[in-house]
């Protein structure tokens, strides 16, 4: 026999682990529920989170009896989460139903609901009262009703917008017609301008021709005058001489006259040709001008219509933005297409370990103290460190095993997928289980019986579960509670497990949390060693 008491005796630790396993194995009524518990938890959470709340009873009071209120009533009936079980005449009747526990909410559509919607002068209101006695259900009912009323409100607003849009489209068509008329007027105007221009050109040409003609006429007149002058200069006394003299002159003049006539004819012919050409040119010019004007008018009309349409679209968008200033769009940050249970699993594991270790450790020391079996251990040369470490190791392995079992059960039953490494997940589970066991040992060391242990552990376990962010978001808590949450190992375990299991972090990323968990385990066991009294009272 070894008479020496080592500070840490690994052989004795092994014996303690082995004994605890035999005790656990021998007590099937304890072991089986402990193993079933995690599977039960994951099943409840798994099935509970796959569905939405259904059929929460509600009462409806329609004081308006209008098409709008009936439409809202239908919308409310179409919501699965609530069930309009009662439609009563007054709010008092509905309140009575709620008081008696028949409904969780009452919805009143006040008189004037339809008018308010039609005129838009005031907001049409829906009055809702929720039974606050059940906070969870109240929250659920409130959310569902808010969503339904908001959806209905949006639907009404969109209907009004659609009417506005139709009116705007009518205005657009009128604008288009106006643009057509403008086009036609513009064409006419263009033609008239061209014609006026052509007329001016023709007038100028005509003036030139007239000038030519005048000159020709003046020349002709000059010839005539010469002829007349010749006749007047005939010597009546000697007409022959004069005649003879002037006959030669007259012959020359006649020839010149003929030349002039010929020239005038040529000019007349040219004038006719020119006029014809001018007419053709004027026609062409008019055609081109008409075409250009038509194009320009058409382009202007199209541009105006497009601008009008664009403005209309912009104003529609603006109206919608005014109605819904913030659009809520959610995108999966880490895991596309994952199920709710995937997100819940890390928290459930952390909770199961914490719950198992803190509640289960009552048997470990306090229970053995009470039934005397620890006395037998105290009578042997076994150090406190060996007793505590051996006990802690067993329960850490056991809790680790239970939680691993939970992970596998979740994978098999609900097809849960781990984004990160299974090995790192199990490592975190083991470290956290060791820390929780050490905390359980510390509490167990303080207690002299399982009853005392239960009282002490409740003080620690319940606040821990509610402050660690497993059930309620830490961010919404007052600063003092947020500070307290940072002191809880469960918070770090949940963060680390979420990191690995959902976000796919590797060990390096969650190392700060892992180190903190190791620190907690060491601190708890160290404090347990200090407070653990090897004394039977």
């Amino acid at each position, binding site marked *: *026999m*070894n*008479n*020496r*008491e080592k500070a840490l*005796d690994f*052989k*004795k630790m*092994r*014996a*303690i682990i*082995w*004994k605890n396993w*035999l*005790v*656990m*194995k*021998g*007590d099937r009524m304890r072991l089986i529920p402990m193993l079933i518990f995690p599977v039960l938890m994951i099943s409840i959470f798994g099935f509970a989170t796959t569905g939405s709340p259904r059929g929460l009873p509600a009462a409806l009071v329609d004081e308006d009896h209008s098409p709008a209120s009936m439409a809202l009533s239908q919308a409310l009936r179409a919501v699965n989460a609530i069930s309009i079980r009662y439609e009563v005449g007054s709010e008092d009747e509905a309140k009575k139903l709620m008081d008696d526990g028949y409904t969780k909410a009452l919805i009143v559509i006040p008189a004037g609901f339809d008018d308010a919607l039609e005129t838009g002068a005031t907001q049409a209101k829906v009055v809702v009262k929720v039974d606050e006695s059940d906070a969870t259900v109240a929250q659920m009912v409130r959310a569902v009703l808010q969503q339904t009323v908001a959806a209905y409100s949006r639907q009404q607003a969109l209907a009004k917008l659609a009417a506005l849009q139709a009116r705007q489209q009518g205005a657009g068509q009128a604008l288009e017609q106006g643009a057509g008329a403008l086009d036609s007027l513009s064409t006419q105007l263009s033609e008239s301008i061209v014609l006026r221009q052509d007329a001016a050109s023709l007038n100028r040409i005509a003036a030139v021709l007239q000038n030519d003609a005048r000159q020709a006429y003046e020349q002709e007149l000059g010839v005539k005058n010469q002829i007349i002058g010749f006749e007047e200069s005939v010597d009546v006394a000697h007409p022959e001489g004069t005649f003879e003299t002037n006959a030669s002159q007259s012959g020359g003049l006649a020839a010149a006259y003929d030349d002039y006539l010929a020239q005038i004819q040529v000019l007349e012919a040219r004038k006719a040709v020119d006029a014809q050409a001018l007419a053709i040119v004027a026609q062409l010019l008019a055609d081109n001008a008409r075409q250009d004007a038509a194009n320009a008018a058409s382009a202007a009309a199209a541009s105006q219509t497009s601008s009008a349409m664009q403005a209309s679209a912009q104003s529609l968008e603006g109206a919608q933005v005014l109605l819904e200033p913030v659009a809520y769009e959610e995108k999966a940050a880490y895991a596309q297409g994952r199920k709710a249970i995937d997100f819940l699993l890390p928290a459930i594991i952390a909770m199961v370990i914490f719950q198992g270790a803190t509640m289960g450790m009552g048997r470990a020391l306090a229970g053995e103290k009470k*039934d*005397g*079996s620890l*006395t*037998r*251990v*105290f*009578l*042997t*040369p*076994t150090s406190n460190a060996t007793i505590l470490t051996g006990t802690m190791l067993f329960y850490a392995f056991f809790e680790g095993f239970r939680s691993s079992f939970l992970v596998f059960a979740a994978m098999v039953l609900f097809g849960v997928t781990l984004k990160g490494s299974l090995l790192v997940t199990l490592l975190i589970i083991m470290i956290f289980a060791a820390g929780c066991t050490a905390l359980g040992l510390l509490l167990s060391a303080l207690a002299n019986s399982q009853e005392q242990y239960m009282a002490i552990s409740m003080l620690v376990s319940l606040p821990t579960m509610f402050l660690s962010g497993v059930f309620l978001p830490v961010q919404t808590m007052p600063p003092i509670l947020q500070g307290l949450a940072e002191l809880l190992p469960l918070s770090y375990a949940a963060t680390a497990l979420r990191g690995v299991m959902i976000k796919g972090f590797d060990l390096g990323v969650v190392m700060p949390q892992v180190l903190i968990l190791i620190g907690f385990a060491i601190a708890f066991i160290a404090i347990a060693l200090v407070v653990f009294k*090897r*004394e*039977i*009272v």
Partner: protein
Amino acid sequence: MGCAIETKGLTKKYGKFTAVDNLTLKVEEGELFGLLGPNGAGKTTTIRMLTTLTPQTAGDARVGGFDVLKESAKVRTVIGVVPQQFALFDELTPVENMKYIGELYGMPDDEIAEHTRELLEIVELWDKKDLQAGGFSGGMKQRLSVAAGLLHEPCILFMDEPTTGLDPHSRIALRELTRTLNEEHGITIVYTTHDMDEADKLCSRIGIMNLAKLIEVGTPEELKKKIPRKGARLPSLEDVFIALTTRNE
């Protein structure tokens, strides 16, 4: 000092309450010493101090030559204890219980196995060696407790009211076992009981405690002479006990 016990001014206080007051006692090696007293007299607290389960508030105690405070680990190797409660594991079989206790004493496996068989045969539980102890009767559990207390071959055995709640057959069997251990194996035994007849028949010397103090020590015969005879009949140990503990209240 071998396997003797010696205390000087041994005192234990819980706050203002004194559980054991200035106890000075010597138990010789090989003696079967009976410690008697009414409930709350301080017997169990004395046993706990001597077995290192509770530190004394004042005074000294040496068990098997070792100081109970300064050499508690050594004291544990020379003592065996049969507590009032079963103090073993219901879920384990006798063999498993013995193996666990043996390993905590640092005994080699073969030695544990050998002693287990020997002791379970002595306490007549060898045929039940593979059954869970939780199903045993009170007498069987106490016999297993004795076997566990003797596994590491202690030379001093503390038996704290071991026959409480046992039927007459079991009580007689346990008493005979105790006598055998003392007479044949030479084990020093400190035996507390409320059964005066048992103490009378079993113990070579008896100490009577009352109100935290040791009020009388002597052989049963010596103690019987402490009170006057009632007629021809010699007073019984019970008469002595009643007389002494009543006088001191």
